[in-house]
């Protein structure tokens, strides 16, 4: 059970986030759902690098040969967090402009590019 449960949670978060993006009627809500989609990738990355019983990869006061979890996925997740912050900031700026230009935030009513 424990050896697959985190991955089921990963798939659940991804699906729920996508569901939110698809059904959203508000751009800011949609952007937040996109954050949820991305959060599934952090959980996946950290879950695949986990070692049962391992310590965090810091060797300040534990010897170097102590079994530790994988530090690489943590570095990747850190990069991922920055990407999330950057993309979200940019999307919010777009949303503010969209609201200004269209007077609505319902993505289904932004019809400038239909056809």
């Amino acid at each position: 059970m424990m050896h697959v449960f985190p991955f089921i949670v990963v798939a659940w978060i991804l699906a729920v986030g996508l569901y939110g993006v698809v059904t959203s009627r508000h751009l800011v809500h949609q952007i937040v759902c996109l954050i949820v989609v991305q959060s599934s990738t952090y959980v996946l990355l950290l879950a695949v690098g986990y070692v049962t019983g391992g310590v965090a990869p810091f060797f300040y006061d534990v010897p170097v040969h102590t079994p530790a979890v994988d530090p690489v996925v943590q570095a990747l997740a850190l990069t991922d967090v920055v990407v999330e912050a950057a993309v979200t900031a940019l999307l919010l700026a777009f949303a503010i402009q969209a609201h200004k230009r269209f007077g609505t935030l319902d993505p289904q009513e932004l019809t400038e590019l239909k056809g």
Partner: protein
Amino acid sequence: MTGTVAVTTPYSVPVPLMDVLQVVVLVLVAAGATAVVLTRRPVRQVMVLSGYGLMLAVLFMVFQAPDVTLSELTVGAVALPLLLLLALAKIRKKEE
């Protein structure tokens, strides 16, 4: 290197206890994600998102990733909700 090596360092938690902890936090995270998506009112959703960020931070803690915990706390639970609230404050007027 792999497998269940029980280590007794200041930071480590016994493996069975850790398992339980992880399952509980994972369930909370899954529920949190669902709650974020299903909260359709933007301002309230930002609050829920902040809570979700906090839960993710706790999850990363029990996944032994203090580095990611710290950045998830600063970004996911504080900075992003702040940006979202600012954007919503800008937008809200016409919504009403």
